[in-house]
């Protein structure tokens, strides 16, 4: 039995019941604070407001979307965030540099290495540290493995939100293999805490290499088989084609990055546009699609997985020997200054802006998450379509609420 903390006017339980009956509207109990809020919460004839979430099987985390519906057609949307807000930026201001790296993992928990990467890059700029080449190659290798596992998960959940129960389990077989091999070097299956300032925490070991070898030998056909389940399925294609179309110019104006931007025709990838780490030495393509709909985003993720397999292959062949960690003093004192570092994560540009005041705690630690901006565009992608289409668009944009809510 849940207890109700609100004041009851008497102890009679029927009074509480009567009070509760009227409180089912998603309209907030205060006057609208902004123009947009006033515009959204004023209903025309025949419109109704419905809450999707926060408890919902398909919101990719804890997110609430207030939808204004006319029958089954969506008229407008207002996403309400903050259910997973943990105050990470504030926590990082009170933690020293190594502890902030551990705070970074649970943000985009599916692709944790990409959350740690810009943090360590920003600190390396503030400390003027040179990362050994072997460590850079290991970072790229593990990062691309993480990208593959994140994309597989995204595709599996895309199918699950549309009703197909099977592809997600097939994707998770592959993801399990990848996660086990990363656990062999990092010790963790999910929130890896592997990157360190100046390198990585420990070299590759025999178990990792043997697992990787096994997996790589059948990775391509396996991924092809898994995605072939859906790419040619008539129902899946008809649910996704033409839904959630975003053209290139609007995508840039809405500050989109990552596969969602590339599916709209803009060939922007930070690994090529502003190269970092050892990506200039690795040969890979930037897959781009022109349609900008959900199907294009889905197919683009498949293409990216194939490119990541290429990158992993080249990393394995080109990896030099050497130390995996730069020589650093025990107590790190970065110079007073500012640093910005951005990496290309599976969802887009994941960036950290660190302001240091010379102590071993960051003065300001700003985290920029790509899915935050993808969610903002619901208002442009979905009105005029049905609730089922919102589901499709949400699944194809692949948001992770941990990163969005920080």
């Amino acid at each position: 039995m849940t207890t109700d903390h609100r004041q009851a006017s008497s102890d009679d339980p029927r009074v509480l019941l009567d009070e509760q009956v009227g409180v089912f509207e998603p309209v907030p109990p205060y006057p609208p604070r902004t123009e947009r809020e006033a515009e959204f919460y004023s209903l025309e004839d025949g419109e109704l407001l419905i809450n999707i979430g926060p408890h919902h099987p398909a919101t990719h985390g804890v997110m609430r979307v207030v939808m204004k519906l006319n029958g089954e057609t969506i008229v407008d949307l207002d996403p309400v965030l903050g259910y997973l807000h943990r105050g990470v930026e504030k926590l990082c201001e009170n933690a020293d540099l190594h502890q902030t790296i551990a705070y970074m993992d649970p943000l985009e928990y599916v692709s944790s290495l990409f959350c740690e990467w810009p943090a360590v890059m920003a600190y390396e700029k503030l400390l003027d540290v040179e990362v050994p080449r072997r460590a850079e190659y290991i970072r790229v290798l593990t990062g691309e493995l993480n990208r593959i596992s994140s994309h597989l998960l995204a595709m599996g959940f895309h199918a699950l939100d549309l009703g197909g129960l099977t592809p997600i389990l097939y994707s998770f077989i592959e993801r399990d293999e990848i996660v086990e091999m990363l656990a062999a070097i990092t010790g963790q299956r999910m929130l890896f805490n592997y990157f360190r300032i100046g390198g990585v925490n420990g070299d590759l070991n025999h178990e990792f290499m043997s697992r990787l070898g096994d997996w790589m030998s059948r990775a391509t056909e396996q991924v092809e088989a898994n995605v072939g389940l859906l790419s040619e399925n008539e129902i899946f294609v008809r649910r996704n084609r033409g839904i959630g179309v975003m053209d290139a110019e609007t995508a840039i104006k809405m500050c989109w990055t990552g596969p969602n931007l590339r599916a709209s025709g803009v060939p922007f990838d930070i690994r090529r546009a502003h190269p970092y780490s050892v990506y200039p030495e690795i040969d890979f393509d930037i897959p781009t699609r022109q349609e900008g709909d959900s199907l294009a985003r889905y197919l683009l993720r498949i293409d990216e997985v194939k490119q990541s397999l290429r990158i992993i292959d080249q990393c394995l062949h080109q990896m030099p020997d050497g130390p995996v960690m730069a020589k650093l003093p025990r107590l790190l004192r970065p110079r007073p200054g500012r640093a910005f570092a951005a990496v290309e994560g599976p969802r887009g540009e994941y960036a950290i802006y660190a302001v240091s005041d010379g102590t071993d705690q960051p003065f300001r630690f700003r985290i920029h998450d790509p899915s935050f901006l993808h969610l903002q565009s619901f208002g442009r992608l979905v009105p005029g379509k049905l609730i089922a289409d919102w589901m499709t668009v949400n699944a194809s944009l692949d948001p992770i609420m941990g990163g969005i809510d920080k």
Partner: protein
Amino acid sequence: MDRAIRHRLEERFGDVLAEPVRQRHDETEIRIEPRDVPDVLRALYDEPAFGFQLLADLAGVDTGDSMEVVYHLWSATSTDWLRVIAVGLDRDAPRTPSIVSLWPGAEWLEREAYDMFGIIFEGNRDLRRIFMPPDYTSFPLRKDFYLPDDAARSPGAGVRAMEASHAPRNAPAGTVRRVGGRV
């Protein structure tokens, strides 16, 4: 470190820059007044010599003495990230023009800066809280923010009518962490 962009920036915006252009590693930084933000960013957006059409980040910073809004931009004409800092916002009533007209995607980023710092972005149609609950009365990332159970009494409490608190505005001296020095 891109020397060319530095020359171009000094030529074009020399009169509005609050401080000389700084460069370190692969970042170029310019500092301007808040009132110049729309013009400078529009010039950076439109002019083909610059072409900074991708907004990578919009952040608020509370330096302890003042507030700042930091924009990070990317362009194909430069190998550096361009950091535009609008310096000198008043800590007690921070206001700056909004860039939603240039990048509609900045609406939520500005909402987040408002929610965390209390910075009012003039021209943003939807400036309400995004992470914190709508009846929250403090701005958490301010340096004088107390723990949540004292938030209503914190001097960092809100600037809008709905979020007004009865606490004194100024924090006691010595409690606010300042960034100090040339950061």
